[in-house]
């Protein structure tokens, strides 16, 4: 069980546009990416976020877990999520 956190300099808009104020980098995430980031912002664990998504979307846990891990990896690579 992991709990990530969002860097303090990251601004997340309603449209899923991300601005990292420490580097000036910008990113876009889709609806599900936004929900994951929102979960992280609410200090939820990865399990809690995955369970929320399983409730909302018609997807099996294994596929979701794989996509979730990929997405978190991308976030970490770009300093958008910290452990």
């Amino acid at each position, binding site marked *: 069980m992991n709990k990530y956190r969002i860097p303090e*300099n990251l*601004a997340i808009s309603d449209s899923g546009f991300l*601005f990292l*104020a*420490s*580097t*000036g*980098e910008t990113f876009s995430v889709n609806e599900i990416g936004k929900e994951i980031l929102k979960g992280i912002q609410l200090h939820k664990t990865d399990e809690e976020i995955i369970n929320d998504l399983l409730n909302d979307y018609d997807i099996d846990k294994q596929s979701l877990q794989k996509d979730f891990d990929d997405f978190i990896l991308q976030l970490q690579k770009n300093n958008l999520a910290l452990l």
Partner: protein
Amino acid sequence: MNIAVTGLNATDNPGPGVPVIRSIKESKEFNGKIIGLVYDSLEPGIYMENLATKCYQIPYPSSGLTHFYDRLELIHEKEKIDLIIPTLDSELYAFIKLEDQLNRLGIKTFLPTIEQLNIRGKDKLFNFCKDNGIKVPRNVLVNSVQELQKLPDDFDFPLVVKGIFYDAQIVNNIEEAVSAFQKLSYKWGFPIIIQEHVAGDEFNVVALGNGKGSLTGAVAMRKLYITEKGKGWAGVTINEKKLFEISRLVIEKTKWQSGMELEFIKSKNDNEYYLLEINPRFPAWVYLATAAGQNLPYALIKLAQGEKVEPFENFTAGTIFVRSSWDLITNIKTFEKISTLGEL
């Protein structure tokens, strides 16, 4: 208050005069005239509406300090200048040398000393940074092709060949280095700086020092679009503590009195900020700082007037500038006036 500003060359290699004036005029406290001092009758700032109240052509400082001073004195007789803000690197030595004479006329300036100006010179920056624990790419100064061919063994290509005042070229082998050396030394003289190339993203800081070692304000920017000449054509303000720590240290150690621009690169290898250059004046993107909440040109005016200025504490990160190209239209009579009378 009548303020004279140079550098109205808002061209593809823009001078900072236009954004400095724009910032001053935007201050609610400002009440007075702006006098544009131009070197060329085609400097675009001359033709911008509502920018300068009046523009005067001045000779290049290289034509002789007496000649340069006489022209300033003549303009002062007509316009009663309270403060001159030079914005171009190439004229700073002249203005610093004339500081006392200008003061006697009643014209204030807010400039670094010659010694401070030299500390940040391209040939001295490495030692300054080393002495103060600031990361900087290694460099060697060379005065001949023979010296260039005897670079230290651990200086690997690509390298950056830099002119003493302007211009830089990335070179990938000794043949390219020799060609760049010849081109830049012919244009700018000696020594030529051979610098390690640090790959990474470019970041810049505009800062204002109060002359007593304190930072009055600073805004950091990441270039979003860079022209072929290496000029930032779009940028976004960012909030990165490390950049401000280094900038504060530079201002503190140099006791810098004026605006400055610090150019950094964040190394892809070690994620550290390397200080590449310190430009001894506001950059052409200084209006971005004003738009983000720090009107540094107007703060400079207050400091020059001897007023106490509280340091700026924050600014809005995420403020973006996008430079544009816009054709100004004038007529031959207007051009004739500035070309023949030297004023408009």
